[in-house]
């Protein structure tokens, strides 16, 4: 088990190295380097200014050389400065990271809290109207364009009913815990609805499979109550495949909430990555993207571990990733 974990960690590092190289080269393949962008908005810039800025920002050297340098600095623990914000990268992204963490955790928790019981309920009432409704919800929620849903929620709850603020971050001075929580309701709901449908669908399928097993019948025959069967036996077994889906979904929330963040004017990682990419802020974009990749790798790893813990059939011998 430990050997397996070590191997996975090593693989994870290699994947991150690959990701950093790929992302660096991709950013380099984007037209218009940082100085091009600065120059394009500035009518009075002179050729000498441009040359000076190129040197200052180091974009006059070949990209592979810059990558080597960046990697070297990274190994020394130096992520460099964000060009856009003229601040150290870590200091720049810290507040965004905190915002994203709040949004992600809340959305993830809500999605699980909604999705898992719904899935279980649907499986327990197989074939009923409830089952059909839940299944319908699961399929529709996975098919809604996010910004459509976000805008709809804003129109209804902020503008017409006036119950909730339309932006996800209250202004400083009015940002007590309650105000912040209240402002997060709509974006969290937007994200959670989509995820919850996904979890409900998987939970329903997994629970149905578990319910069809012989030992459930045995448990029922022994007189275990329906609730006990559902929560004691079915849930535990059904969680195995759902954990994988949830872990992957969690990783995706980190950088994939861009649309929700934009609609709700919430400064999170998705938006920061987008802005950094669009402004050719290499250092910042790389740090954020690597963090996102790291999270995906970690989530995969966590899914593996959960898988191994919950399902005795998966041994450490099986080196391959979870299905």
């Amino acid at each position, binding site marked *: 088990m430990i050997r397996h974990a070590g191997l996975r960690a090593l693989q994870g590092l290699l994947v991150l190295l690959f990701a950093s190289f790929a992302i660096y080269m991709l950013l380099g393949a984007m037209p218009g380097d940082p100085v091009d962008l600065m120059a394009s908005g500035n009518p009075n810039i002179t050729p000498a200014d441009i040359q000076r800025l190129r040197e200052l920002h180091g974009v006059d050297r070949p990209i592979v050389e810059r990558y080597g340098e960046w990697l070297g600095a990274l190994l020394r623990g130096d992520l460099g400065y964000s060009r856009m914000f003229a601040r150290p990268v870590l200091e720049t992204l810290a507040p965004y990271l905190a915002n994203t963490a709040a949004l992600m955790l809340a959305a993830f928790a809500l999605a699980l809290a909604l999705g898992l019981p719904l899935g279980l309920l649907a499986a327990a009432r197989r074939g009923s109207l409830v089952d059909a409704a839940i299944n319908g919800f699961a399929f529709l929620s996975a098919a809604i364009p996010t*910004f459509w849903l976000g805008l709809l929620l804003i129109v209804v709850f902020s503008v017409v009913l006036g119950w909730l603020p339309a932006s996800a971050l209250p202004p400083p001075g009015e940002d007590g815990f309650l105000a912040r929580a209240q402002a997060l309701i709509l974006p969290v709901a937007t994200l959670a609805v989509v995820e919850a449908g996904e979890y409900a669908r998987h939970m329903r399928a997994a629970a149905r499979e578990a319910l069809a097993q012989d030992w459930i019948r045995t448990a029922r025959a022994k007189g275990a109550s329906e609730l006990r069967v559902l929560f004691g036996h079915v849930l535990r077994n059904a969680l195995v495949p759902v954990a994988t889906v949830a872990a992957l979904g969690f990783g995706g929330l980190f950088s994939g909430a861009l*649309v929700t963040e934009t609609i709700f004017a919430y400064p999170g990682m998705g938006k920061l990555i987008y802005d950094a990419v669009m402004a050719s802020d290499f250092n910042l974009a790389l740090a954020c993207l690597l963090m996102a990749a790291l999270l995906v790798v970690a989530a995969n790893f966590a899914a593996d571990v959960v898988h191994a813990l919950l399902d005795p059939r998966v041994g450490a011998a099986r080196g391959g990733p979870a299905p």
Partner: protein
Amino acid sequence: MNARLAFAACVLGVAALAALGVPPLAAAFGLDPAAVDLALRYAPPSLAHPLGTDELGRDVALRLALGARVSLSVGICAALAASLVGTAIGLAAGCAGGRVDALLMRATDAVLSLPVLPVLIVLAAADPAKIGLPGGDAGGLVRIVVIVAAFGWPKVARLVRAAAMSLAARDFVRAATALGASPLRVALVHILPNCAGPILVATALAVGGTILFESVLSFLGLGIQPPLPSWGNMLGGAQEAVWQAPWIALWPGLAILAVVAATNLLADALQDLLDPRRLNAT
């Protein structure tokens, strides 16, 4: 199960019919979906324009049909491309095993661990010429197809690999090998046809995924470029008008919702049909 299939078939049938039938029909009646009429901007639904008009006074219904053509073809092409690459890689890994398998699967892991949305945005904003893609009108379509193929294949590859591995252990495959069939022949003739189920399911899922993804890119202004309508860019373009002409945001949104739900249902139903033992795979 039949209800699911029926719903999916209905929705997809209507969309396909609209995509294939309406544009030529409109042309026959002399209606032009690109006809600009600035005097008729944001007209509410009427007899002449059953779904109203958009910001340039173009007929929303006609554009919706034309958008079906664009969105569906992008979705189908991208899904097929991703499946093709994924099937090839998964088959190679599953049949060859050993080092080849290890290498290919690590590559799959690596691609899966890239943060999808940001990397796709970088790709969408990159200079097409620099990464060897065509520009111009078709550029937007081709670009999205390539992007989805480049990032969608790992899921298919994993499914195909798993299926191939279990098939390789089956008696009829062993028998073929024993009878002297070459590994390539075994893979293509004996294993591949039996992997059709998972491939079909994954492809159906990818069609819906691509349509949704294109709508996100359009929201960011990186999707299919006007004047070519796609449901994504119609919806993206409607954001600013959401207060004055909500119907122009409504229809493309509903179209996306219905078609994506239909493809997902289709995938779900196919899965049950093709392999009743496996209830779910991711």
